[in-house]
């Protein structure tokens, strides 16, 4: 990177920062969707930020003995103990690497999913999100796809993930969350 390019990008940054204060207030979230671009097991995914209650990195996870390979252990969030499941294992392609990112799903019971990399926070129009036709819940975790720079990504639905966890742990499958 040449000094001229550095100067240009510095000017661009300054202009963007200044413009952010000049822009009018944006429309409601109904027109836009907040997405997190992540990677789990080396594969790209996206998940809706509206289904998450927090994102954390490098939280200590206490392993628990058990038959579930996807259960990494439990972690403490704001005074509560939350089970942590490996998203890649839930998606069916577990990798030996230990994931460092955790996303807390909204709703109860509390659940945290671990993924390996955070590619970024994107804001996309809802119109470009390809949803399923019937909108009913299926046996999988993925619900729809979103085209993003770098490729189209499947969208991980966190309530479906909780349902899959419940199935794994032998609970009755029901969905209390709004999709």
């Amino acid at each position, binding site marked *: 990177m040449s000094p001229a390019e550095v100067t240009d990008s510095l000017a661009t940054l300054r202009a963007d*920062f200044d413009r952010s204060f000049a822009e009018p207030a944006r429309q409601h979230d109904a027109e836009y969707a907040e997405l997190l671009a992540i990677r789990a097991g080396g594969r790209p995914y996206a998940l809706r930020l509206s289904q998450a209650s927090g994102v954390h990195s490098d939280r200590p996870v206490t392993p628990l003995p058990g038959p579930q390979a996807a259960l990494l252990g439990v972690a403490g969030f704001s005074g509560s103990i939350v089970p942590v499941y490996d998203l890649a294992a839930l998606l069916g392609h577990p990798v030996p690497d230990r994931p460092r990112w955790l996303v807390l799903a909204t709703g109860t019971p509390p659940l945290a999913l671990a993924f390996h990399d955070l590619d970024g926070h994107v804001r996309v129009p809802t119109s470009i999100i390809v949803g399923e036709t019937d909108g009913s819940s299926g046996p999988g975790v993925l619900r729809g796809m979103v085209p993003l720079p770098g490729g189209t990504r499947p969208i991980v639905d966190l309530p479906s993930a909780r349902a899959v966890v419940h199935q794994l742990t032998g609970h009755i499958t029901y969905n209390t969350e709004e999709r």
Partner: protein
Amino acid sequence: MAKRTFGSKLWFGFGLTVALTLVMGAASVIALSVVVDAKDDTIREAVEDLVSAEHLTTKAESRISDYRAFILSGKQEYLDLTNNDREQFLALVVRLRGTLTNPGSLALLEAVSAAEAKHAAALVPVIEARKTITDLRNTSQLNSTGVVGPLRKAMQEAIAALTAKVRADVEAARRDSSARATQAIVLIVILGLAAMACGSYIAWRLNRDLRREVGAAVGHIQSSSAQLEAAAAQQASGGRDQASAMSEITTTISELLITSRQIADSAQRVSKIAEDTADAAQTGDTTIDQTKASIAAIRSQVDQIVQHMLALGEKSQQIGGVVDLVSELAEQTNILAINATIEASGAGEWGRRFAVVAEEIRKLADRTAGSAKEIRTLIDDVRGAVNTTVMATEIGAKSVDAGSRQFDDATSSFRRIAQLVATTNDATREIELSTKQQTTAVEQVNVAASDTARVTRETEASAVQTKQTAAHLSSLSGDLLDLVGTGRR
């Protein structure tokens, strides 16, 4: 005599001949002296005795004449003459008595003396008588007795007899001496014949020996001369061949001399080149030292570069650490912004405004993370470049070390080359010196070969001369054989 030399034979024969000649000469001298003595005796006898005898007659007649003159004149002077004559007469008698040897003649002399004495005795009275007589008419009285006359005749007869006897003796002596001379002539003739015979024998013997021995020797000489001539011809031919061979040898040696001089010049040039090479090697030695110093300086510079590069890598690592910190901060800011967005989405209208701020914060965090990533990439590039540079520099240092070692090897090789060049220089000088000595030796050989060729030509010339001399000797031998009568063989 067969084993004696021909010279001794000649000397013997000549000596024998000379001895015979001496004997003949001595005999001749003796004979001549005998003849001369005989003739001398005869002549002396004829001269002295006969003359004395004749003088006796003369003196007797002279005395008679003087006596008669006295008688006639009566003068004393005539008487003195008469006495003088008688004294001379007596002296002659005495002289004859000493000289006569024949007894008959002596007897006749004594008879003469006796007759004269009687005659003288007879005369004394007459003379006395005459002195007394003064008148010549009485002269007849003087010889009155008449004895003087007979006595005078007797004396004259005795003297005549003596003279005849002496004449006869002289004649006898002449005949005797003639006989002796005849004997001497005969003896000399006999001796001469003997000497001639002996000389003829010696001559025949010498001639025979000469023909036999000298002829044989001359024959040998002739055959030897022929052999010598053949040998001389062969020697002359060989000398010519040898002379041509020596000429070729001389030519070859001259070429060899030229080649040797060329070799000497080449050796000298090689020596010069070797000296130049040694000088260049010394100059190269200095250059090698300078190059070694330069290599050591390069090694030191490379070490410093490595140190600086390692320090630069360390600084880059520190920068990387800071960038990691910035990245961590950006990530945490991003997480906070995301969580703020999540919290804002549930906070109604106020939350929406807060979400805008949170998004801006998130964007800043993203940009910060992107810039940190770029810095990280740059730092990694720098570190990679530093590592590459360090590795390249270490490789270069190793290359410098290897080059230094190789240069040391090259230096040792170069110094060994320099030593070898020095050795080569010495060897070249030795070669040059040896070649010069060889050239000198070849020149001496050339001179010797030229001398030998000259001597060979002289030998050939003398062989030709020897051949001519041998031919001449052979011809002379033939002539000598002709001379000694054997004839050419």
